[in-house]
């Protein structure tokens, strides 16, 4: 990075299964207006706009950023549209960060959204791959075998997934923007029907309408702003090919490489001790245990022990997804940016009822594709 970059504004919508009262443009504006207000800036202050969302088939609009140019305040500004599958919200924010780091832009607005009620996510997320029998089982059908492999490999007991799901819901109850906030017990989860073995109904992310927007800015702007910024210490997006013989889908190399990259550049040697909270992309319960290992918070095979001991709960050693995470709110394209934005809010000390005490460094993380795309950043109170 050529020069420091800070998050100076965070905005998100109230997330729900159907924001029928809003057009796609309205939804995006709800987040954008909040981010600009938060940053104390107006559209005219913005030098470029970086937009991200998951497949256009989710809403049935091709490259919707084109018709949203007006709503995004992008008229006569540079704009790009990013799409890196589920990781897109995170890779989009990182692309916006690069714009500022380049020295060419002072203040960049980045936006990610999904209005899933416009379409059918199960259909849109069931790609027909050449020479491959279509699963038509959505993302859950795709990722359930990865979770089964994790259980087989580590001997994790079957209550771990339900524990993760119940904890996420307890966290979401403290987040006013979250989609699913009704409390549920481990027993409730265990009693819900299995959708894709071992994933039960209540261990699955919802389909949400929602958007997230961030304003990223140079140091000069960050010092001028009305609030304490979150400094981006390091960020990276990595991807790996799918059909590599021996590729480890449970503990993907791209995730390990990306985590090593961002921790090294942030000067973090032991993330378990030096990161105070993490927002990580957990669309199905078991991924929380899997990513704790992949990110290097613990050794391989130890992720589920952290969950079993409750060390990742709110108020414990390393609160994971204090916002409730993807399990409680999932406007797919925005989910990654929500992770990065929530990490920034924790560092800024403005996460409201789900604020973790004493956060100096926070990790925001997202993944996508067949566990092939990883994007993450470390934000900090200091640069």
């Amino acid at each position, binding site marked *: 990075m050529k020069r420091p970059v800070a998050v100076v504004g965070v905005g998100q919508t109230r997330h729900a299964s159907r924001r029928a009262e809003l057009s796609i443009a309205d939804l995006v504006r709800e987040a954008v207006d909040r981010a600009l207000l938060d940053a104390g800036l107006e559209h005219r202050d913005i030098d470029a706009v970086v937009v991200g969302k998951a497949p256009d*088939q989710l*809403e049935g*609009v091709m490259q919707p950023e084109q018709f949203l140019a007006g709503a995004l305040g992008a008229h006569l500004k540079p704009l790009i549209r990013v*799409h890196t599958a589920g990781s897109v919200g995170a890779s989009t924010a990182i692309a916006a960060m690069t714009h500022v780091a380049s020295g060419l832009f002072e203040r960049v607005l980045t936006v990610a959204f999904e209005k899933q009620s416009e379409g059918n996510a199960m259909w849109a997320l069931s*790609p027909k791959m050449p020479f491959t029998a279509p699963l038509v089982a959505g993302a859950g059908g795709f990722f359930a075998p990865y979770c089964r492999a994790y259980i087989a490999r580590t001997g994790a007991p079957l209550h771990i997934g339900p524990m993760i799901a119940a904890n996420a819901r307890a966290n979401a109850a403290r987040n006013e923007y979250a989609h699913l906030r009704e409390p549920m017990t481990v027993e409730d989860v265990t009693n819900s029907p299995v959708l894709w073995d071992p994933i039960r109904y209540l261990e699955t992310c919802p389909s949400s309408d929602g958007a997230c927007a961030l304003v990223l800015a140079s140091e000069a702007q960050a010092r001028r702003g009305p609030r304490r910024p979150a400094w981006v210490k390091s960020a990276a*997006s*990595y991807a*790996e090919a799918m059909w590599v013989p021996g590729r480890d889908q449970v503990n993907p190399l791209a995730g390990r490489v990306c985590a090593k990259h961002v921790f090294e550049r942030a000067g973090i040697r032991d993330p378990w001790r030096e990161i105070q909270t993490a927002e990580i992309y957990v669309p199905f319960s078991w991924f929380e245990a899997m990513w704790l290992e992949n990110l290097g918070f613990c050794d391989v095979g130890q992720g589920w022990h952290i969950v079993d001991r409750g060390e990742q709960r709110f108020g414990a050693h390393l609160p994971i997804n204090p916002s409730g995470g993807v399990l409680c709110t999932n406007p797919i394209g925005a989910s990654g940016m929500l992770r990065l934005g929530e990490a920034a809010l924790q560092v800024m000390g403005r996460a409201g009822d789900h604020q973790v005490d004493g956060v100096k460094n926070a990790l925001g993380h997202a993944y996508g594709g067949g566990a092939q795309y990883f994007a993450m950043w470390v934000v900090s109170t200091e640069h």
Partner: protein
Amino acid sequence: MSRLRNVAVVAFAQAPVVARDEHRMATEMLYPQVRRALADCGVERSAIDYQVAGSADYIDGRPFGFVGALEVMGSWPPTQDLHLEMDAAFAAHYAWIRMQAGDCDTALVCGHGKVSEGEPRRILNLELDPYYQAPIGLDPLATAALQASAFMARTGTTDRRLAEIAARNRAAGARNPDVQVRSSASADELARTPWAVEPLRTGYVPPLGESAVALILAAEGKAERMCDRPAWIHGTDQRIELQTLGARDLSRSPSARLAAERALAMAGATSAADVDLVELSAATPVEELILCEALGIDADRSSPALNPSGGPLVGHPLMMTGLIRLGEAFRQLAGRAGDHAVAGARRAIAHATNGHCLQQNLFWVLGTERRWT
């Protein structure tokens, strides 16, 4: 403009544009281009720091079509990567920004997609806003015709003039082995072709085509070692404008004008007329005229040469057309343009667009010498 990092195009490979490649998937079309581009600059994939692609899921006819490109772009071991849902020229622009940030020294930029898998006229209707414009059934030919009408009404441009521009592009295309339409046609012949959508004739619009493209960018220090005649980027800028057709003066493109101004200013150039050639992503003769107006160049003069490759009228693979313009500018400056070479070319402009009616525009100004010393 403060000193930026000198970055150059050092390699370019494209599959010849065809109406339909019956036997290969998009990734199979792309892989040989990646290998050719790498071989061109004599490096292995491991020498490339960053990769970024441009494509569209709707063109691929499925979600996550771009994920397959990871297999052929060389994503093992894992690589730093991004994908833009745009013409791949915008991916090249982002790679350039990344180099300015000091995050990479070399980048592989790919464009891919098979339009023959679907019905692009219906698909591109879905780019329009879903509440007011898309339901009318407007497709890119219809919106281009609206734009042509507006331009002809404002400027008095005649049908004959459009035929002449189309004929020039056809003549140029006949000298370029990578294009789809390799036969020249006279203005008289083209002026007799039927309306596609009035006032655009079938002779004034490109056929649907598909290709695959790989281009390599490298920063100063590496570029010279990868290419004997790199095409240095002197300036670049991109801008979008409103989509709503009724809210725009379709006869002009303010986003193109602003992007051109900024790119030229970055290049330290006073006038676009000083370059030797211009490659425009103009899918119709009217788009060519609107872009010339935005650049401040006279489409009737012999210099700069306009679309010496034949331009999109003879080969228009969606999501790649813009990156091919950048690749063509490289070919000209690197002395690799073969039969369609512009003699002694030292400076070039390349252009890319996204959306209906030139909604978003990207310009590159390139030269055989470094911009910043």
